[in-house]
């Protein structure tokens, strides 16, 4: 592992460090809510997925959804975290029209998951460990709608009671890149586990980013002592809903805090909002305005007690996660970089593995995907699932290149054909005569023709052997790209008496 490069921000009074912690709300993938049987589909018509429990009707009682508990445990295990066999649901009390019970059921003092760790994969190939403080389950609130009428507000309770996991990191991130990488890696893990779909634009994953700045060296003192006094006062930026915005918000906020301090001011602990249009953060409420949530254990729910054997069963059923997959792919011959690019998204990893299952060589498949296919998808703005070429078809192309059936050049053309017209790559190669010519007799004939037609060039080449590439190009052109480039080179060398 390479040494972690800590990004310092220059100020008038010296260098500053950024310290970042995150709280991520991830919606548990579940057909029904955390404490009721109501459905959870995204985009349903307002108030169509609301049970009497979700609407806070008199006498209604919450009943824990076991599926959701299992997903929280699964996620905890995926984060290499401590699973707490006893956890407690608390009520967080406050009034808001989209909070029908007048309290949110959450876990406060005794969360279901304790400390864990995830590894960030940075662009330079390095990995950075970031501590997980805890994971707890809680209900989502409904949605207030203020822009439909000048004199009324509306409430949609479809989200009310939907199960969330709040995943809290330790303040271990030190740049906007690391913050974005944290969110990316966390999302990948959740998707691998299948516990959250990670769709940030549908709100199924939302990040609150805590940012503080301190003078260079402060962070190391904090890590050495655990004493928060070495860090600056943090501000919490609420509901940042994309990786790009996370990076922007951190950059803006860190610079803002440095400017405030260097102008002789102090940072107040507060909650801020990220305005993605203006690219800036704005004060929402200060700590003094914060609610007194009057947390206390929810008397409607008994402490949640898990059986170790049940937890072990979940652990045994965990899928291979990105870090393990990366290790395996590296062992199969991929570079650390290629492996981390492929495993970063479950979809790309699955696609890659499907190619391998179809018999493509790992390294060739990785190069092909990273250099050709994913680029085309990006350009077209398509997700892997929506791409027009199957893993089997791409594997067939890669295999034909490896078997010298087609050239690399033809392979790219072939991908374009399959992309736009569909069809079986092998059948297309056959039908359109795209097979590479490896018959030396046929190539020799073309070489002879080209030499005969260009006596002046033959003389030039003898003086300047580097010009041989011109002949290669002519031969390839004359063969319609089908001649095997290796064979062409060898025959040309021999016919033109060129040195090796």
């Amino acid at each position, binding site marked *: 592992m390479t040494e972690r490069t800590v990004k310092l921000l220059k100020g008038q009074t010296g260098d500053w460090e950024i310290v970042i912690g995150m709280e991520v709300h991830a919606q548990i993938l579940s057909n029904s809510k955390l404490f009721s049987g109501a459905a959870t589909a995204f985009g349903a018509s307002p108030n169509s997925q609301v049970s009497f429990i979700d609407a806070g*009707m008199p006498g209604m*009682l919450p009943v824990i959804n076991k599926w959701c508990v299992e997903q929280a445990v699964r996620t905890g295990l995926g984060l290499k975290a401590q699973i707490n066999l006893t956890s407690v649901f608390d009520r967080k009390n406050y009034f808001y*029209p989209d909070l029908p019970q007048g309290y949110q059921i959450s876990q406060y003092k005794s969360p279901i998951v304790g400390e864990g760790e995830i590894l960030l994969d940075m662009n330079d190939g390095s990995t950075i460990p970031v501590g997980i403080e805890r994971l707890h389950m809680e209900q989502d609130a409904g949605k207030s709608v203020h822009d439909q009428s000048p004199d009324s507000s509306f409430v949609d309770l479809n989200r009310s009671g939907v199960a969330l996991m709040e995943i809290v990191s330790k303040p271990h991130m030190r740049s906007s890149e690391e913050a974005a990488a944290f969110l990316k890696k966390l999302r990948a893990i959740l998707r691998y586990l299948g516990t959250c779909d990670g769709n940030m634009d549908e709100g199924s994953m939302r990040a609150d980013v805590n940012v503080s700045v301190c003078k260079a060296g402060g962070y190391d003192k904090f890590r050495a002592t655990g004493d928060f006094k070495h860090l600056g006062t943090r501000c919490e930026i609420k509901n940042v809903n994309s990786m790009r915005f996370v990076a922007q918000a951190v950059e803006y906020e860190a610079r803002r805090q440095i400017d405030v301090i260097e102008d002789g001011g102090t940072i107040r602990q507060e909650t801020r909002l990220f305005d993605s249009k203006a690219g800036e953060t704005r004060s929402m409420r200060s700590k003094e305005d914060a609610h007194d949530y009057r947390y206390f254990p929810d008397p409607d729910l008994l402490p949640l007690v898990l059986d170790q054997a049940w937890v072990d069963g979940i652990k045994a059923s965990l899928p291979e996660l990105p870090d393990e997959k990366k290790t395996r792919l590296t062992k199969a011959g991929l570079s650390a970089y290629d492996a981390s690019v492929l495993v970063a998204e479950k979809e790309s990893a699955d696609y890659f593995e499907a190619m391998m299952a179809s018999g493509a060589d790992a390294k060739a498949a990785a190069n092909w995907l990273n250099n050709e296919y994913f680029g085309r998808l990006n350009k077209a703005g398509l997700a892997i699932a929506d791409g027009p070429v199957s893993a089997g078809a791409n594997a067939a192309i890669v295999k034909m290149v490896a078997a010298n059936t087609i050239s690399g050049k033809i392979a790219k053309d072939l991908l374009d054909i399959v992309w736009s017209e569909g069809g079986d790559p092998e059948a297309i190669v056959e039908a359109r005569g795209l097979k590479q010519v490896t018959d030396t007799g046929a190539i020799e004939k073309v070489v002879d023709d080209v030499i005969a037609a260009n006596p002046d060039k033959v003389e030039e080449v003898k003086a300047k052997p580097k010009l041989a590439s011109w002949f290669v190009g002519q031969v390839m052109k004359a063969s319609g790209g089908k001649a095997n480039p290796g064979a062409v080179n060898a025959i040309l060398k021999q016919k033109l008496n060129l040195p090796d």
Partner: protein
Amino acid sequence: MSLPTKLTDFSLAEARDAVQAKKVSSKELTTAFVKAVADARPLNAFVTETPEKALEMAVASDVRIAHGEARPLEGLPLAIKDLFCTKGVKTTAGSKILGNFIPPYESTVSQNLWDAGAVMLGKTNMDEFAMGSSNETSHFGPVFNPWRARNSNANLVPGGSSGGSAAAVAGNLCLAATGTDTGGSIRQPAAVTGTVGIKPTYGRCSRFGIVAFASSLDQAGPMTRTVRDAALLLKHMASVDPKDSTSVDIPVPDYEATLEDGVKGLRVGIPKEYRIDNMPPEIEQLWQKGIEWLKAQGAEIVDVSLPHTKYALPTYYIVAPAEASSNLARYDGVRYGHRASGPKDIVDLYERSRAEGFGKEVQRRILIGTYVLSSGYYDAYYSRAQKLRTLILRDFTEAYKKCDVLLTPATPGPAFGVGEKTADPVEMYLNDVFTVTVNLAGLPGIAVPAGLTANGLPLGLQLIGKAFDEATLFKAARAIEIAAGFTAKPTEWWRAA
């Protein structure tokens, strides 16, 4: 066994036997009670009468009986405390804030009763959100106790919060009624109306569909004229319920089957801490009588100590309001119930809807509860109260090493006058001094009529049992019932009114 001449004088068990034997039809029985309810309006025991529904159910019951398909409570008219949500029938919890609330669902306890064939006469009046010991905090006005002191026309309270149910049972307006008990709300009104009331073990009856007051203390139970009736009714109220995570999956025994087994060899604990300062001599004497009655029937009397008893009332008045302050947050005027008119913004809507919708006692408890949970006070109040709760339960666990049930007075005195204690909330709270410990410990407790005061008002004794040992409580209560021979009835003064 000779049956009473008036249908409304039947006990629940007598009515059951008569209906099942086709000596009386449910329609006859129900018609008699519907009339009794209407005649007793001066008592204000009901918030909502449902005579049409009652007769419809009675007719359906008679059809089932005719087809030989009678269920255990077939055709028996009951009154339901207005804290139980009843589908399509207004459920107010005694509050203006739910004054027009019609639930689209049924509570599990009432559903169990309808599934057993029972008939609904209506919904009984109660202290607002079950907060009170006299039924005077109801938005729908006080309930009057069917009992009056000898040679007096003064109206007395029926106790609370299940005051309407107690009055309806004592006044023979129904065969039996449901109540709920958070700190004594079944046992205290039962004691001061000469009826039987049991608060079962926490988790015995489902809380689903019961408007919540203090979730960790609330428990539904029967209010009846005899111990047998209580045993019969509880059997059909109790169930484990997948919709209530705190309900407990322990089979409900046939309490009636063991009712007459007697108390020979039963160890009855007498907790010395229940001998409180300024205890009226009548209460002391009644307690002594109870001890003698049980001893005479073969029980062994054991002195026990429950040293944390004195902390029970303060603990209760922290835990219950804390939970209530959160449970009652949902009454905000946004989705159902009372909403203030012309709010200028959301905060104004909340403040005025709740100020207009909640009565004084409810507001007082919301404030107490909010205070004890607030940051900086939580440790001093709520967390210490929780620790005390553990100690109080431990007192009982220790005591039950030496005895099987405990015998105590049910209330510090008989029914008091309407308006007599409303000025001082603490004096009102003291009514629950003998009953709250049981809720804090989650144990079952039963109040059984044991005698009359010198001026003719009923008094009760309380038996406290081990968790889920209601069967023993019923046996012991039956022994007291036999010995006390309590046959007094209130004069039906309200008929002349």
